[in-house]
């Protein structure tokens, strides 16, 4: 069992932010979390920061010291964690392990990414470097293409339809209407989703998460100290991570993610819970198919049942298994290195009854599922109400 709690969370609005530099985005999120925990920047003893590719997106390496200095935490150990789109969930895990080691009492875990400095083909090229460059990116596969390959395999094996994929986008856009920090706070219709232009067949524009800028941060302490900072801390009761082959071609199955299944099994064991005990989850819907596969890998629905489940409304807020109240990566936005901590912030809000119109009724346990790259990394966290 993990004995760490969240006592503060902050996030920038996700979207295009030409007005802000990377460090400015970070500081808005970090100081938001610090203020909420009722501490000062000087109280933070260590920082772990998720980021995929500041080097390619922003021409800047070695960002962790720069980030903490700019936000008033000069001098503390500051480490960048990279696991493609799961970067900040691995930063979170590093922060948890640092607290569990007993070395520190107050740790910041954050994530930041500014993707919109590059034009779209440049973003696509940078993200493709999170696949095996020699064997899969060089033939020309893109991230939408990787998940399109999984979609075709899932459709072939289970009869999953484009309408079921589109249902994920429609639901997540509807949830994001109630998230003031989401990139797209507008509903879309099934017809609109289905008629959008192709990105990587069979995935169209509305099957894809967007290009986003943003940052998210949380303040973590050991659970026994948590009530010193807030009346309603949120306990982290499981933190797991697993890996898989980089290459799709090296995998036995193209309709499931082994790293996600492995991390999920370990997480349930760590928390002494089962899939049915999870009231709601933030899952990594970088593409619509990814949410369907996630709900199967996490054991919420049987393999092949993820598509029918979303189509029947079983994953709407308050239904059988609430998925992606925040709007998910699809509509909340996906500044890749910030996504894992942003998911944790949503769990934090929900478990403190602070999620406003997207609040899940009677939510006690939430799960965050953050996938990196082709699924070569996955980190899972389970949180519980105090």
């Amino acid at each position, binding site marked *: 069992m993990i004995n760490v709690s969240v006592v503060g969370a902050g996030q920038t609005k996700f979207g295009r932010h030409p007005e802000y530099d990377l460090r400015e985005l970070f500081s808005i999120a970090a100081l938001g979390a610090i203020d909420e925990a009722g501490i000062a920047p000087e109280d933070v003893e260590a920082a772990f920061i998720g980021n995929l590719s500041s080097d390619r997106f922003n021409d800047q390496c070695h960002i962790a010291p720069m980030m903490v200095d700019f936000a008033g935490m000069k001098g503390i150990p500051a480490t960048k964690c990279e696991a493609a789109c799961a970067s900040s969930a691995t930063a979170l895990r590093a922060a948890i392990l640092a607290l569990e080691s007993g070395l520190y009492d107050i740790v910041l875990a954050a994530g930041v990414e500014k993707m919109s400095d590059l034009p779209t083909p440049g973003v696509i090229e940078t993200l493709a470097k999170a696949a095996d460059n020699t*064997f899969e990116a060089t033939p*020309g596969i893109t991230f939408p293409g990787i998940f399109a390959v999984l979609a075709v395999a899932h459709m072939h094996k289970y009869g999953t339809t484009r309408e079921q994929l589109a249902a994920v986008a429609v639901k997540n856009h509807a949830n994001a209407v109630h998230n003031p920090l989401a990139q797209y706070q507008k509903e879309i219709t099934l017809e609109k989703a289905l008629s959008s232009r192709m*990105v990587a*067949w069979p995935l169209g524009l509305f099957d894809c998460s967007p290009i986003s800028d943003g940052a998210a941060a949380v303040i973590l302490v050991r659970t026994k100290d948590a009530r010193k900072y807030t009346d309603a801390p949120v306990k982290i009761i499981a933190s797991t991570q697993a890996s898989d082959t980089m290459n799709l*071609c*090296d995998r036995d199955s193209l309709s499931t993610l082994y790293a996600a299944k492995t991390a999920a099994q370990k997480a349930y064991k760590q928390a002494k819970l089962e899939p049915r005990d999870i009231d709601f989850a933030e899952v990594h819907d970088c593409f619509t198919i990814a949410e369907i596969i996630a709900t199967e890998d996490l054991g919420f629905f049987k393999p092949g049942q993820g598509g029918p489940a979303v189509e029947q409304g079983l994953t709407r807020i308050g239904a059988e298994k609430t998925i992606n109240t925040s709007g998910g990566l699809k509509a909340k936005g996906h500044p890749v290195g910030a996504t894992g901590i942003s998911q944790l912030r949503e769990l934090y809000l929900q478990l403190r009854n602070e999620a406003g119109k997207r609040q899940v009724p009677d939510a006690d346990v939430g799960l965050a599922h953050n996938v990196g790259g082709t699924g070569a990394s996955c980190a899972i966290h389970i949180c519980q109400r105090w």
Partner: protein
Amino acid sequence: MMSSETTILNYQALLNERKLCAAECPSCKTLMLPPRLFCTKCHKRGTRWKVLSGRGKIRSFTVIHIAATTHAADAPFVVVVVRLKEGPSITARLIGVNPLKPEDIKVGASVVADFEEASGPTSDQPDMRLVFRPYLVHK
């Protein structure tokens, strides 16, 4: 080349000779593609090249419409994951099909390897890249 170490560099050199090769374990005969220096099953060293037939079946595929800067001129194009007859699986382009008719491309369809000049860095001898095309049975 066939007696060379099973490195990624030598794999490309063999492709340049229009040979698709996998690394074979000297002990348990596991075939590895992309090639490796150690057997994934029994961790033995001393892997050797084995030429593959190039015949295989489509496991899954996509049509890339929005490509990376480096590939934008080729879009739309088809990328396939192929299970080769000898067992290993590899990702490459599929040529000889209409990318705008993806419904005509089928999971399970037979394909065969071919080699194409890759428009790459400025060398006098451009690298060859692996591609697949539909395997047509001659009547």
